[in-house]
């Protein structure tokens, strides 16, 4: 029971923020935080596929980017953002199934998989940057090469393309969506399918010998993470109003990985908190122009890998437990015999 309450605490905080934020924050902050939430949603996708299923997807940004571009093109063509969000979520699923069946059926190791997925996102990057020629267009929307697509309509009331949502409403939706993604992934993880995915991460051979179709579960988890990432991409594009090939580039791909490592692999709260923290940091740094973000991010990744390889959340939890154990003698005795 206590565990259920503890688990509900984080999404509850997000929901609370979704409704109180518009009354206390400036519009500028609201827009920023909406974008951060969209990014955090995508990061959750990676936290799931890597932390639960053990698939090291270094090119997670490719699904984010596909979702972002799909939203941009659909909403610019048809005007209705609901459809665009839907397509921006579905298209990455289709793409992940195609890519996943290539990857998982050849039983690539961790590292190979990471490298290949990273290559895929880099290929998308170089392709998108080479689409400056107006010949590259989908419907009436030119892909725009390095500049990407601009003046993308934001979210509107479903069915009424003229009724755009206010900054405040968009903020609430983004935070609620983040809470929703968190709850969805937590439920999946604790479901039977999720337990089997954890089992596959732990020991592929044993899972196979117990009769589980590893490739099926990997595809399933991969597609789910792609959908979440694509969904995050659609929201991000809706908030920012533009999309460029940078959604596919190396810094973008590395950000997702960084947040998940920093937050703690295998956890969900950690990556979300880390994503907000690092985005805030990079905002500040960007305003300062003193340090560039790559320098800081690179150093941070190295430090985390060397000093706190399990990430912040497990570290904080352990420290909190230690304190608790210290204070009460009952807990103290329980520590030893394991």
């Amino acid at each position, binding site marked *: 029971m206590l565990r259920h309450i503890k688990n509900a605490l984080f999404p509850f905080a997000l929901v609370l923020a979704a409704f109180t934020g518009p009354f206390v924050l400036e519009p500028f902050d609201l827009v920023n935080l909406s974008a951060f939430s969209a990014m955090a949603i995508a990061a959750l996708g990676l936290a799931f596929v890597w932390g639960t299923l053990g698939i*090291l997807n*270094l090119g997670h940004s490719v699904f984010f980017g596909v979702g972002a571009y799909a939203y941009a093109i659909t909403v610019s063509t048809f005007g209705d953002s609901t459809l665009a969000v839907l397509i921006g979520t579905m298209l990455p699923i289709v793409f992940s199934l195609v890519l996943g069946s*290539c*990857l998982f*059926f*050849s*039983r*690539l190791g*961790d*590292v*190979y998989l*990471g*490298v*290949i997925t*990273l*290559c*895929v996102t*880099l*290929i998308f990057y*170089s*392709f998108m940057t*080479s689409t400056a020629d107006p010949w590259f267009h989908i419907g009436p929307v030119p892909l725009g090469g390095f500049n990407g697509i601009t003046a993308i309509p934001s979210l509107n009331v479903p069915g009424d393309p003229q009724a755009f949502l206010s900054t405040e409403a968009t903020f609430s939706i983004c935070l609620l969506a983040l809470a929703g993604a968190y709850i969805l992934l937590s439920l999946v993880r604790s479901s039977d399918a999720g337990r089997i995915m954890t089992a596959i991460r732990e020991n592929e051979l044993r899972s196979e010998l117990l009769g589980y179709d590893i490739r099926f579960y990997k595809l399933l988890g991969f597609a789910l993470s792609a959908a979440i990432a694509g969904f995050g991409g659609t929201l991000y594009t809706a908030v920012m109003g533009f999309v460029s090939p940078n959604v596919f*580039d*190396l*810094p973008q791909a*590395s950000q997702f*990985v960084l947040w998940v*490592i920093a937050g703690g692999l295998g956890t969900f709260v950690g990556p979300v908190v880390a994503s907000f923290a690092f985005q805030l940091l990079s905002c500040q740094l960007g305003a300062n122009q003193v*340090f*560039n*973000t*790559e*320098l*800081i*991010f*690179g*150093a*941070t*990744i*190295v*430090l*985390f*890998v*060397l000093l706190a*390889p399990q990430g912040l959340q497990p570290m904080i939890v352990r420290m909190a437990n230690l304190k608790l154990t210290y204070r009460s003698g009952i807990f103290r005795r329980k520590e030893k015999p394991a």
Partner: protein
Amino acid sequence: MDQFVILCFAVVNSIALLALISLGLAVIFGMMRVINFAHGEFIMLGGYATVIANHAGVNLWLSMFVVSPMVVGLIGAVAERLIIRRLYGHLVTTMLATWGLSLFLIGAVTAIFGNTTLGVSAPLGNITIGAYSIGAYQLFLIAVTALLVVCSLLALHWTKYGLIARAAMQNAEMAATLGVDCDRVYATTFIIGAATSGLAGALLAPISGVLPHMGAAYVARAFVTVISGGGALITGFLSAATILGPVEALLSYFATPVVGQASLLLLAVIILRLFPTGVSSLWTGGR
């Protein structure tokens, strides 16, 4: 006829380029099973070392063949000492750490030299074939690459260091019981790999110019080449380069460079689908 010669040249050039940018990575990955994500940045640093040294008045050939390998080898030594050595055996962790290193190096170079392209002019002039002309420097590049590959093959199979390195790579524990200092072998290997990458960057600088982000353009292709090559150290990535290079060259020529790169990746994915441990599993029996 002229077009045919040019095409052949493009194919050979593409194979040589793949081999050149993969050699340093292949040495480090093949010997140490370390995935060095900072490989592209080692190339980038090699390029910068040559350009900066040349602008400072050092002879171009001297900067290429001496300054760059030394500078990058030194950086490699520091990285090995501070990061890689602590993580041996943890494949994924090493990969993440070197990725962090790669971002750090990009950031550092951007902070110092700015986000602009620097360059040196390509030496050696042009050779004309009918209506076409090709840079003599590119021919020179092909020759140097071939020489490098031959040298590394010889070093690996005919020198004492090569023997020790192969022993450590086959079975580190066994080699250690025979008195081989594996830590030192690994450190040396990493430095040699880094220096080779630096040399590759130096050689490429006159053609492509140097930019903090240039590593990204090479690292994907280098990885794909090395990984689809598989376990056999030199022959593996060489054969992969021979398969992938022509495809990239021809499709780049007849379509666009982006199509060429995309098909290179696609082909690599297919190769790995057929031979999950790389093409060299055909003659090493897989591993």
